Each structure stands twice: as C-alpha cells, then as structure tokens.
C-alpha cells in the first residue's frame, strides 16, 4: 500500500440512530446545520409496518421506519442536496475508490454489517447489514471512523472494514458508499421541513393495506392477542422479544422513533413559526411514553416474571390503544400540516 496518512477534520456528534446521525454529521461538515431530529423529519423516516409474511430468523418483521437508505434519499430530494452513490463488485476497487475520495478531502458515508465491526460491543453484533458509518481518514492500515451511535470516533483495520463493507445476506452491502456532491448554501429549510412533515403524516395515515401506517399497529395487536395460541408459549415469547428489540434497540433511539419525532416537531414549531406544532410534540411524547410502557410490560412477560395482570391479551389492549391514538394523531397532523 502506497497511500499516505490523511485526517479530515470531522466534527463527530453522537446520535440515537445511524442513518439520521450520518446525515446530520455529514451535512454539518458541508456547512448545512441539521440536527438528527431534523434529518429524521425532513427525510420522513418515521413509519410503521408489521409484515408477518416477511420473516427474519423465522420471526415476523416489525419496522418503525421506512426502508434503509430512504431517509437519506428523501432528505436529499427535499433539501436539494446531490449525493454521489456507488456500489462495487470488487472489494479492492471499493477500497481504492474510498482512498481516492478521502484524498480529495471528503468524508465518506458507507453501508456496513454490524457483525463485522470489531469496535462494537459483542452483544450487538448480529448480521444486520444496514449500519451506516462515516470514514474520515486513514493512518497506516487503519481507517478513522465516525460511528454515529458511539460517543467518540474510533478506528478499524483495513481488512475488517473491507469485510464489513462486503457482507452477504439481507441485503448484500456491496461496498455501498456515498458522499454529498452538491450541498446548496441557500437550501430552503422551511420548505424542506414542511414537505417532510406532510409526507410523514400522509404515509402514516393514508397508506393502503392493513399492515402499513398507524393502522398497522392495530393489525399487530390483533395478531399479538393470539400469539400464545397460534405459536405456542416458547415461540410466542421469542416473537415478543423480537418485537421489543425492533422497537427499542440501537437504531431507533427508543420507543420506535417517537421521541425523536417529538423533538422534530418541536424544532419545526420554531422553524416554521407555527406554535401549534408544539402541542403535537407534546402529544407525540405521550404516545412515546405509551410505547415505552408497552415495551416494559412486554419485557416482563418475556422474562416470565409477569404478574398475572400482564398477558398477551392485556398487551394487545395497550397496543390497540396506541394504534387508535396514532391514527388520530397523524390524521390531525396531516390536516394541520397542509
């Protein structure tokens, strides 16, 4: 290797979620100040879907967000940012291109698999192939990494990074990398925020099919009620644990993005000079608390430590209530955001 050391001055800030964190950090480098909640809101990242037909490790997928990569896409569309995106077949070519872009003084975002990132705690290293990080330099055989979920920057060996960039599974990471080519200095943030807000409210309240949007919560509730009967006690517990992980684990910032979206509503109220949105922020916070309460009781049942009043039925009741609340919330938000 004949590449020389290089460190790009990169201001790393810790985030609750990887994709929104990378957006916020990368944009700040290019002179556009967006907080993580703004990135989530402008990119219309909040969503809900429960897909019993789509299974990972034999358990149905529940998602609190839109597809990986799409927050970035919508964010760019709404702000006029132009991204250069690449994928590769050959790992060496992918590393060479990374080196070239670093030499131009640009930090690079990329898709990695958590399983192959040695700097992360072992307990979180599953085959999850949609983790976003930023590489902002290299020193000898190591690359300098800004992993948005960590409090400080870290390093990774070239071989390890190459492996993490070329993990197989769902999806193949294919060495995907991206960096902003054009970041407008005069982006109309008010317009971007208003657009993102409308889209989230619309997606949550009007997406057809029972399993998508806020009505999908009721859809899951109806199934959850009979988990024990339909799956047997053992598998029911696994499915419930899986549900908690999708909702709370690294990647959502807690309660399936509700609190982060509340923060977005607060910022929007100030940015759009629409104090009415503050009330919506408060309501979203209350809904987030209901989600937390649900996760808490689900955790008790999972561990078989439940007092007799926590059953699949009582959890389903809680979820049904949350679903109704969210349906009302997003319908009214859609109206208010028009």
């Amino acid at each position, binding site marked *: 290797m004949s590449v020389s050391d290089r460190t790009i001055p990169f201001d790393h800030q810790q985030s609750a979620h990887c994709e929104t964190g990378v957006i916020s950090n990368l944009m700040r480098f290019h002179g556009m100040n967006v907080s993580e909640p703004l990135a989530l809101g402008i990119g219309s990242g909040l969503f809900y879907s429960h897909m019993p037909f789509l299974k990972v490790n034999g358990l149905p997928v529940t998602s609190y967000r839109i597809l990986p990569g799409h927050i970035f896409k919508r964010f760019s569309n709404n702000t006029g940012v132009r991204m250069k995106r690449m994928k590769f077949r050959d790992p060496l070519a992918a590393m060479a291109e990374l080196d070239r872009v670093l030499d131009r003084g640009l930090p690079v975002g990329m898709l990695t698999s958590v399983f192959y990132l040695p700097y992360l705690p072992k307990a979180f290293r599953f085959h999850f192939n949609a983790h976003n990080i930023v590489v902002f330099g290299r020193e000898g055989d190591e690359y300098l990494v800004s992993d948005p979920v960590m409090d400080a920057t870290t390093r990774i060996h070239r071989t390890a990074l190459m492996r993490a960039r070329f993990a197989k*599974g769902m999806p193949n990471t294919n060495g995907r990398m991206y960096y902003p080519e054009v970041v407008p200095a005069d982006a109309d943030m008010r317009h971007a925020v208003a657009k993102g807000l409308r889209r989230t409210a619309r997606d949550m309240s009007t997406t057809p099919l029972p399993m998508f949007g806020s009505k999908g919560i009721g859809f899951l509730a109806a199934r959850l009620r009979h988990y024990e009967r339909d799956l047997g006690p053992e598998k029911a517990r696994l499915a419930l644990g899986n549900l908690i992980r999708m909702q709370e684990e690294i990647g959502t*910032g807690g309660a399936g993005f509700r609190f982060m979206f509340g923060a977005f509503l607060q910022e929007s109220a100030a940015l759009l000079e629409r104090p009415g949105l503050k009330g919506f922020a408060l309501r979203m916070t209350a809904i987030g608390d209901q989600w937390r309460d649900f996760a808490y009781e689900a955790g008790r049942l999972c561990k078989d430590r439940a007092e007799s009043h926590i059953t699949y039925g009582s959890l389903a009741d809680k979820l049904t209530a949350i679903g109704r609340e969210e349906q009302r919330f997003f319908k009214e938000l859609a109206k208010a955001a028009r």
Partner: protein
Amino acid sequence: MKKEEVPQDDANLLEGKFKVVKYALNEKGEYVKVPSVGWEPENVALEQAWDVINERVEVALAEVRAGRASSLSYHMERNMMDPALLAQHMGIGARRVRKHLRPADFERLDAHTLQRYAEVLQVTVDQLKRVPE
C-alpha cells in the same frame, strides 16, 4: 419521557465502551440527548436472542462430538450463519454447504475450499477442523 426517567439499567451489554443516547425532555420541556447505559426490557430481549444462538451452538457441538456432523457446522453456528448465508459468502450453492456439514464429505474437502471456509468463518484451517474440547 423526562430526562431523569431515561433508564440506566446496566447489564454490561455495552461492555462499558460507550453509552447510547435517547431523546428526552429537560426541565424546560425541550428535547435533549441523554446518555443511557441500557434498559431492562431491551436487555431481556437481547439476552433472549443470545440464548437462542448459544443454544444452537451447543446443539451443533454435541452433534459434532457424536460424529453426526462435521466441525464446519459448529463454526457455522458460531458465526450465526445458516447454510444459505454461508453459501453466499462462499460463492457456492447451499446444497454443497449442507453436504459439507456431513463428516464424511467434510473429510474429503480440498485445501483450497478449507482455506476459503476458514477465511469466511474467521478461524484458521486448523481450528476449522476441530471443535473445543
């Protein structure tokens, strides 16, 4: 969730390496980022997921020791892979991987294929051929 309600239930899953951040309300009712070392329900769910994985590794180990499976199946489970995922990493068919999980077929593997398996599963060829005592 208020700032002081952000859970701090440490099950050492983060190994003390860092804290994650959550969004919560400060005294003035504004959202801020608050560090957290973990939360009981998350810890329970994560531990449950690991129990399933560890159980699979144990079963594989017993199968290998009983001579019903090749050591490859133990190393595959340790990497949290199934034949389909391992096959993708190897660039061969899942059926061939399943075949190599049988002791007799594994014995006959050539040096090159062994080397590839070892690389994918992050062990040496020597380790690949063995399981822990």
